[in-house]
């Protein structure tokens, strides 16, 4: 194992870079599934909801990831139970759970000393102080998540587009949904301590949405999304070091900038590409039909 830990030691800057690349790739790839199933709000809630788990684990002196993971599972259960109630739609269920869990975390933390410092580290992360052990955990998580996504690719995609078809073919549809949610949770839980709750959602949603603007096919979307996530991490770290500003937030802004540029420039789906197509088809019927088909 020593060669593995050796690879992950090195200077602060090298470790931060490695962490940013690994988190970027894994978040980017799983982000495609998150967008396919319209789960960004759920992912955001999961990030916020790990907070009381982290605080509790710190109070009890157990592993932070364990606390975050347990609370993540509780959140999945709470949202599922509340959303099943006839009078509560899923979005409202997520909203209530997010707000409640986050307030609980703030409440627990406010009873401690050093309130504001811990809190901001949690919200925006501190990627520059990432430890070799953190890197190892991120690497293992990455391998597990990417491996599971590759092995279950066909089933997960079918479940996203045609859940009834998946069940009709005899696949355990509910179990597959749970597996995907757990994989998302794994990514969020391992990335939040290093990059913060806000950034973890940004790295999941932005690269995938950007990749989706450039290609319609799923495989290339995932590859591009992972590459964009890693690129956002590297560029963001370099910029933040040069300007001396918060690293996590800078990475988010790079990912968002890539999205904004693609929104304008991407062929067919971008604003400019859309205009050209609309102009070529006099009145834009084709463009509108294309949008309907794609969206």
């Amino acid at each position, binding site marked *: 194992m020593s060669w593995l830990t050796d690879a992950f030691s090195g200077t602060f800057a090298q470790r931060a870079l490695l962490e940013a690349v690994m988190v970027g790739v894994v978040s980017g790839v799983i982000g495609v599934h998150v*967008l396919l199933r319209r*789960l*960004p*709000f759920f992912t*955001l809630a999961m990030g916020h909801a790990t907070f009381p788990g982290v605080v509790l684990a710190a109070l009890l002196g157990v592993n932070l990831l364990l606390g975050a993971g347990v609370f993540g599972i509780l959140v999945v259960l709470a949202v599922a139970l*509340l959303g099943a*109630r006839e*009078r*509560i*739609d899923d*979005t*409202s269920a*997520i*909203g*209530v759970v*997010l*707000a*409640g869990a*986050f*307030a*609980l975390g*703030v*409440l627990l933390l*406010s*009873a401690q000393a050093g*309130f*504001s*410092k811990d*809190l*901001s*580290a949690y*919200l*925006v992360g501190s990627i520059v102080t990432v430890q070799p052990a953190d890197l190892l955990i991120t690497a293992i998580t990455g391998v597990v998540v990417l491996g599971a996504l590759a092995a279950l690719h066909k089933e997960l995609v079918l479940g996203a587009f045609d859940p009834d078809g998946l069940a009709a073919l005899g696949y355990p549809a509910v179990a597959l949904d749970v597996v995907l949610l757990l994989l998302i949770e794994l990514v969020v839980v391992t990335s939040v301590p290093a990059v913060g709750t*806000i*950034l973890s*959602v*940004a790295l*999941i*949603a*932005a690269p*995938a*949405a950007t990749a*989706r*603007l450039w290609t319609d096919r799923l495989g290339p979307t995932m590859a591009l999304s992972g590459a964009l996530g890693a690129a956002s991490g590297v560029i963001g770290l370099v910029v933040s070091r040069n300007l*001396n*500003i*918060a690293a*996590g*937030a*800078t990475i*988010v*802004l790079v*990912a*968002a900038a890539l*999205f904004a540029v693609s*929104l304008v420039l991407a062929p067919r789906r*971008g604003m400019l590409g*859309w205009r050209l197509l609309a102009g070529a088809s006099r009145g834009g019927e084709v463009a509108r039909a294309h*949008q309907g088909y794609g*969206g």
Partner: protein
Amino acid sequence: MSRLLIEPFQVAFMQRALLAVLVIGVLAGAVGVFVVLRRLAFVGDALTHTVFPGVVIAFLLGQSIFLGALAAALLSALLLTGLTSTRRVTPDASLAILLTSFFAVGVVLVSRERSYTADLSGFLFGRILAVDWAVLLQTLVVAAIVLTTLVALRKELLLRAFDPDGAAAMGYRVDLLDLVLNVLIALVVVAAVKAVGTVLVIALVIVPPVTARLLVDRVAGMTAISCALGALGGYLGLAVSYELSLQRGVRLASGATIVVVLVACFLVALAAGPGRRALARVVGGRPAAGNPAGGRPAAGPPTTPSSEGAG
């Protein structure tokens, strides 16, 4: 009981804090009804984050934080309405990106400051006990504007919520109505930013109306309960956090305590809801105008709730 519920509010700063949370609670409860009916919890959450950079920029420039929040709120409501109506990207993806990038701008700007972490938590969670009369006045003005708009456009907004195609067919500008609602949500955040901060506002906007929805069917009753709950949660939360900090030496953030009280009310309603509806069925009335649950008076028709039986 009176020691817990009345005594804390004999100090001037606690009276101002109480007035602020009551106004904000009613305001958020009223706007929240539309947020829940339209399933806009994610939009609401996004708007609470996008106001943040405005607050930071105003702080850095030495301008009024209120104005900064207002400018950011209007800009982000416009952007959000535009982005979510485009079909190039799914609305939830664009919401997530807008939310995180606006928030990141705020964090980047704060991170240049020396008092970074203290400032950050102040903006995010507010300082309710530091509310002065000027802040209170701003909150009251914003509340008056939002509530007036809600009353004036009530029918149109409801029609849009339940039957967007019908609203469009009747000649209403649906996109304009969406923009109005988004601006109203953003204004609630602006009104609340100094007192409870940007992050916990979402709880005030979502939890009371969802709770009310569990108890009644009619929109008017839902609005009344939602507003009352918002105010009640603010009152109880403030009293509890004051009592515990002063008497027991446990320091609890008042904003978070308010939210936890609201969530507790939600859980009570979750347990009481089915029983209450069964009761209404037995009594034979409409399931909407029913008996109160958990000792709460006046759950039914659109009268303003004059008192909350919480003593």
